């Protein structure tokens, strides 16, 4: 094996590992839902993906997600929260509201209709109140 081959092989293997990790396993900076009138609200921009794609909410409280779809790409046409039974159309250049009560603590993935774009709703246990 030449030096070039060794280098190419090493870089290639590293690139494969990185691609798989980056696209399949890494996750964006989590965003805490802002509390307004007792509702945890987050605005999400849909354009080639979800920004933010990791949303932190508290268990048992109402959640309102405002999805603004800033593109016409077919991929992002629907928003699906499979575990919550939510499957909604997102008209292009419009804000679509998705409301539900946060389930018990855990992770609730959401995705586009074709399962290409992905996001994660991280449900944290509600802090003891009062």
């Amino acid at each position, binding site marked *: 094996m030449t030096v070039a081959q060794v280098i190419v092989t090493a870089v290639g293997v590293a690139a494969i590992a990185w691609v798989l990790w980056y696209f399949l396993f890494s996750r964006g900076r989590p965003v805490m839902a802002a509390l307004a009138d007792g509702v945890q609200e987050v605005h999400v921009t849909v354009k080639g993906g979800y920004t933010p794609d990791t949303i932190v909410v508290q268990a048992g409280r109402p959640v309102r997600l405002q999805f603004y779809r800033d593109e016409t790409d077919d991929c992002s046409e629907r928003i699906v929260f499979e575990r919550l039974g939510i499957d909604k159309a997102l008209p292009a250049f419009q804000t679509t509201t998705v409301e539900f009560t946060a389930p018990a603590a855990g992770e609730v993935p959401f*995705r586009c*209709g074709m399962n*290409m774009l992905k996001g994660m709703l991280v449900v944290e246990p509600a802090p003891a109140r009062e």
Partner: protein
Amino acid sequence: MSKTRLVLPIEGMHCAGCVDTVQHALAVTRGVSSASVNLATEKATVEFDDALTSAADLVKAVRDAGYRGDTTSVSFAVEDLHYAASVTGLEQALARLPGVIHASANQATEFVTVDYVPGAVASADFERAVGETGFRLAAPIDAADPLERERAARAREIRVLSQKFTVGAIATALAMIGSMLLETAHRSDVAHGLDFLGRLLMPVAEPLRAAFPLAPAWVKGALALITLPVLTWSGRQFFVGAWSGFRHRTADMNTLIAVGTGAAYLYSLAATLVPGMFSRAGLPADVYYEAAAAIITLILLGRLLEARAKGRTSEAIHRLAALRPQIAHRVRAGQIVDVEAASLTPGDLVVVKPGERIPVDGVVTEGQSPVDESMLTGEPMPVTKRLGDEAIGGTVNATGSLTLRATRVGNDSTLAQIVQLVEHAQASKAPIQGLADRVASVFVPVVIALAIAAFVIWFDFGPAPALVFATVALVSVLVIACPCALGLATPTALLVGTGKAAEHGILIRGGEALEMLSRVRTVLLDKTGTLTEGRPSVTEIVPVAARDEVLRLAASVEQRSEHPLGGAIVAAARAEDIELRSVDGFTVLEGRGVRGTVDRQVIEVVSLAYARERKIALGPLDADAERLAAAGKTTVVVVAGTAARGLIAISDPVKSTSRQAVAYLKERGFEVAMVSGDSRASAAAVAQEVGIDRVHAEILPSGKAALVRELQQDGRRVAMVGDGINDAPALAQADVGIAIGSGTDIAVEASDVTLIRGDLRGVVVAVDLARRTMSTIRQNLFWAFIYNILGIPIAAGILYPVLGVLLSPVIASAAMAWSSLSVVLNSLTLRRFKPAWGA
């Protein structure tokens, strides 16, 4: 000073006091000369000077008073807004229209959004205002109609794609000619061997080179420049999409195309700018500009054809939505005024002239006319609408003039509900899609990983020049992989299948219902209202002497009765134009019949059992009575004084198409059974008439669900067909519940499938379509999977050790474009579906 009149819908008024508040608030607004508020219609009529005040001020006044002035908004695309120097003029022109509250134009999206008072301003006004400011609408405006907007967006997409494709095609053609100048003289034999097109064009290349003896370095530079717009403009969407996907940690089609063509272009650019580096490494300084341009052009062509084909997949729903008429002739205080159909409220009276589309769901208050409902029900025969009948918005009034009182408007209307239901179904998923979804979610990253692996393997083990082969394999793998075909396989077929079903008056709830329907083997049919008309009618009259006299006497007494059997007798008499006599002393003999005095004669219409109990001699009628009872028909005896004058047999007639429907179902191998709450005799009679051998009679509504469960426990997949109300539990229990409708009420809640028309053959159409759609989906998925499973290894060069073949990236991209197009085209074949009887 010009006076303007505006009708403003107001929400939140509950009492007369509210009316005063709103009225006052409006009256004191500057420029308002009169304001009157109607609580019943929830509308304010305001006259004002439009130089002093505007609709926005009025809405604000209402809002300040604590109520909501109902406003609506519309968005529409305006051509080339992107390049306009200023949008202020456009916004102002729109805002100046009476009834417009606010207008804003977005240059980035080329969309204009206008808030306005519903009914006060029409889409034609917007169109005019846009035109007057020198702009052009990208597509006709349809207020708040997402379908229309989607159509406009699609039209724009097609236009933009064609432009990009044209530029790409021209540049690619030039680049190919240019690269021919480089052939043989400076291109290595290996790379040449890979170039399929180059080999084909060999005879042209020689004379071309002789004609233009240019230095290779110049040709390469020119190629880099010619193909640059293809990457940066035509293919811009792929790079932008890939980048925005990358930032979101998602990889899709765009990523594959961008990385593939980007790699080819950059490799070529390096070979052009620093050829010395390549020659020092013993590599030919070959360029692949034409490949990068051709890939993008071919994929654009695929997208272009796909966008056109996709437009056709949702044609059915567009046709349905287009049924909604825009204008209605509203009658108010004796005046007929044309208003936008969308502004009608329940209770409004509208006139429908011959040949016009009925604008809303309503009840006929005047007139009589045949109405063509085929567009909703698939029923070709017009239905005559008379006083009190319900007419459906979107159907066509044929010959007479009708006045209707609007009952359901806007989103409550039958048409809107059908559209919503179909749209929902089209957007839903079939469970079969699950596998494709799981694959799609990891597809692109895995393909990128495979492409890198192919690169490394070629580099390490491939023949020299290894870098060339490795790059070709990398690019080919990236561009041949097609997750789109996987993603499109189910939705396009569902779109066409459910749309086609709607055309035949069949509403399918979604992909899951469709998939289940295609797997059902047992069909359980309710008797009353499903196989039969659901309305009892006189089927036979057996007189002792005069037939008409028997019917006249019976109907004269029964005209006072509210019993359905009585109604059937009266209807029969009316149908034969038999004049009824007046009746005195009408009495209901509970559960036995009725009695009254007609022509000073006591007439009774009683059940056979009661007649026998009373020991009324039937004489010659006795044999007929036995025969009718045995046939399961309800028989009444007409008695004058103490003498039986005749028998009237009443039964619920079987629908004319039921027998054919059952035959078709049996022909398709279904196990067909009937369920009924009626007596065994009457159930058996109907079963025999339609050709069903399995009968479950005397079963209560709750028992029907239990029966379905029993059948399911035996391992059968059951479709239950019944009316949506009485049979709801059984419909819900069945694997597929098919509700058979009566036109207006779409009993969608309990059912998976709704037949708008009462024709039982709809079940056959639904089953056939479900099976066709599912097999189309399976074909699509099969090809999409097979294509990728075979295509990726071939592109990676798996055939090279055996056959010495490595796919050219250009061929790979053509294959990719074709694979997703072929899925869409295969789904479109569903449009050719016709019912078995060819209606």
